[in-house]
């Protein structure tokens, strides 16, 4: 067991160390400064921008300073930036919806996969366009190779880039003084795609293939096993998709059971690389903020606050899973290697628990163990991660959520000490608080109302012939399955308690709508907030100002997150996982 704690600690420390490097790189990319990869990637960026018709507005020279480079392209205020974001996403939705609905007749379908049924296609495309990657289909039977490449992997790149672009724009708004423009959406989107995700995805993809993840255009093979049985083995274009699913906090797997499948995640080293890929960009984003607002101390305070939420959850989940199953122990079976139902031998309980917390803290949603089979309190931790939705968080959006909590914490702290709340020298007033509250409150509303409606439908329409209906598990755990599904949809996470029979019109449409609203409300409201703050003058800080880059503020922020989280979600936590734990 002790080596498992070592492996968990090493993975986290390695990711933190490398995030310092990538955070600086991302700052340079978005500020238009020179980087080592420019000779290869800048021509590609220019090519894409020229093709879509976004051209430098004056002069062709590349400035060295941030302001010069940003001014090169047509600038957008928050409304135009948001409009570009929405329209691009609508177009992507329509194109990809068409592809999966026609995949039977499109090329690259060696296994003869059928067209996707409309409510399932609505759910799937909404899920991937919103960077959620909730999957009500199973990859090996539900999607052709063409769809996997041109719908799934494509969206996994561009939706992650959409989140990153939005976050960069919000930070520009906070950093600027008397600023009306937040940047150019397509320039940010292209830079995120071509200069951040593409090189990282190629690198991780090569490592995964080396470890054993397949990459072939040929169809499934049929083996004659040692005992003479036939075994059909699904393969495909796996490595490229697994790579970007992790880096873009997408999480949608190639195969049904995601990164528990030995093809998606063949070795402890591939597991290490994937765990790294899940958090690396969200962690780096914090350092990027520090560079953009020219306050390294603020980045340290925010990073420490996130760690102070993340590390206890990891430690608790590892303890729970390593503790094994009391019911199996009662049968006389040794539980010293932990609870192993739904887990793989090559990872063990410790690295599975680390992944479960990491994938939900970051809105990734890939799994390397079946979450439905986690211990009750071990399974509570992924839900907490999705409820808070800001511990490192999804690419871009997680950090935006954290900024919302920062605004709220600034407001609360300001009220407590009787001063006008301000952040980065800007007054936080009623309009900003309204926008922050809208972004903040949508989340529990979607989860709690969604779960309540699902419970009502389940209770009133259950088929008497099958007492459990769409649930795989009885009692509080069944409640948790429904709660988890809506938490996952609202947090744009995508993992699931997969015992839920979720490919029904109700679940497809309800979670599809929740995913769409839970993606765009928490992006547009903060962009508006950034627009409002950007226009205000930044007042110089005085001795009387509330300083956001102090440990005291870090603690206040931590407490605000914990208290708000408890107020919103403690009751459902008690009804589900905690009741299950107490009853076992």
């Amino acid at each position: 067991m002790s080596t498992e704690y070592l492996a968990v600690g090493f993975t986290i420390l390695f990711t933190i160390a490398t995030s310092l490097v990538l955070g600086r790189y991302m700052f340079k990319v978005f500020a238009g400064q020179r980087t080592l990869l420019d000779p290869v990637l800048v021509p590609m960026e220019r090519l894409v921008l020229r093709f879509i018709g976004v051209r430098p507005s004056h002069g062709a020279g590349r400035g060295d300073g941030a302001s010069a480079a940003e001014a090169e392209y047509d600038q957008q205020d928050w409304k135009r930036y948001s409009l570009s974001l929405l329209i691009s996403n609508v177009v992507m939705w329509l194109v990809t919806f068409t592809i999966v609905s026609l995949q039977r007749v499109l090329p690259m379908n060696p296994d003869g996969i059928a067209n996707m049924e409309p409510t399932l296609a609505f759910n799937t495309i909404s899920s991937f366009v919103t960077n959620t990657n909730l999957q009500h289909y199973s990859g090996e039977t539900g999607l052709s190779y063409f769809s996997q490449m041109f719908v799934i992997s494509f969206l996994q790149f561009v939706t992650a880039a959409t989140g990153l672009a939005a976050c960069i724009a919000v930070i520009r708004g906070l950093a600027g003084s008397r600023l009306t423009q937040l940047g150019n959406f397509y320039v940010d989107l292209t830079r995120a795609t071509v200069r951040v995700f593409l090189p990282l995805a190629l690198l991780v993809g090569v490592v995964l293939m080396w470890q054993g993840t397949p990459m072939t255009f040929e169809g499934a093979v049929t083996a004659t096993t040692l005992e003479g049985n036939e075994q059909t083995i699904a393969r495909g274009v796996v490595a490229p998709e697994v790579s970007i699913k992790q880096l873009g906090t997408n999480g949608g797997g190639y195969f049904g059971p995601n990164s528990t499948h030995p093809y998606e995640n063949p070795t402890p080293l591939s597991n290490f690389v994937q765990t790294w890929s899940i958090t690396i960009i969200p962690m780096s984003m914090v350092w990027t903020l520090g560079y953009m607002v020219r306050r390294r101390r603020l980045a340290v305070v925010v990073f420490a606050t996130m760690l102070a939420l993340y590390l206890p959850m990891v430690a608790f989940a590892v303890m729970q899973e390593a503790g094994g199953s009391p019911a199996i122990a009662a049968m006389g079976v040794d539980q010293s290697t932990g609870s192993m139902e739904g887990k793989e031998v090559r990872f063990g309980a410790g690295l599975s628990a680390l992944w479960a917390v990491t994938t939900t803290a970051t809105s990734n949603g890939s799994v390397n163990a079946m979450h439905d089979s986690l211990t009750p309190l071990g399974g509570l931790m992924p839900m907490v991660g999705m409820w808070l939705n800001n511990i490192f968080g999804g690419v871009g959006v997680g950090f935006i959520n954290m900024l919302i909590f920062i605004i709220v914490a600034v407001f609360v702290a300001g009220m407590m000490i009787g001063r006008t709340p301000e952040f980065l020298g800007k007054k936080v007033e009623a309009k900003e608080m309204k926008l922050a509250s809208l972004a903040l409150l949508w989340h529990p509303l979607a989860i709690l109302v969604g779960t309540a409606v699902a419970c009502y439908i389940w209770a009133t329409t259950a088929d008497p012939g099958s007492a459990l209906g769409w649930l795989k598990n009885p009692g509080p755990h069944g409640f948790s399955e429904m709660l988890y599904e809506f938490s996952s949809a609202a947090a744009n996470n995508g993992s699931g308690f997969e015992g839920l029979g979720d490919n029904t019109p109700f679940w497809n449409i309800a979670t599809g709508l929740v995913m769409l609203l839970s993606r765009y409300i928490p992006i547009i409201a903060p962009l508006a907030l950034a627009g409002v703050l950007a226009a205000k003058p930044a007042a110089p800080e005085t001795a009387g100002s509330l300083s956001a880059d102090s440990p005291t503020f870090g603690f206040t922020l931590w407490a605000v997150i914990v208290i708000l989280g408890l107020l919103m979600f403690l009751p459902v936590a008690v009804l589900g996982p905690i009741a299950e734990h107490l009853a076992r």
Partner: protein
Amino acid sequence: MLKELKHAVLFTLVTMVLLGGGYHLVLWGVGRVAFPSQADGSLIRRADSTIVGSRLIAQKFTRPEYFHSRPSGVDYNAASTGGTNYGPSNPDHLKAVQERLDAVKASDSVQPNQVPSEMVTASGGGLDPHIPPAAAELQAARVATARGVPIDRVRELIRTHTESPTFGFLGRARVNVLDLNLAMDEALGKR
């Protein structure tokens, strides 16, 4: 507005070609050149080039002369994979665990406290190719008896087929069941 639409359509087109097409082709090319076996799915072929299976994908073993894989929630169906998704206190789950335990107790004549937890629980993807060394050790006597060879030869093969954690601390020690069974057939003759 029309300009916005034009940007959106063109961006979708160009990145679809670049990422859906180009990105995949580059990795496919690297795979062909550098890792042809892995890229193909780590398949194992017989001398007559028929496929035995993949060394990453668990097979169903029931005969006494072979080491058995971990239980699978999908009966080792590698075309439609998954776990059981049973919660830890689900009565159906506990019944399944008890049945697996009884089966292992009977086939290997052991007490419950000698049975590693991995052999009574289903893996995540249903295709876990590994078992812990203790689970191989547990089956050694049965395999040796069925093959009519000294148990020390079987143990020796288990030892040489045990993989250590990567760098000594990442992941767990494990034995690849298909590799081990193939080695048994090769060293001790196919039954």
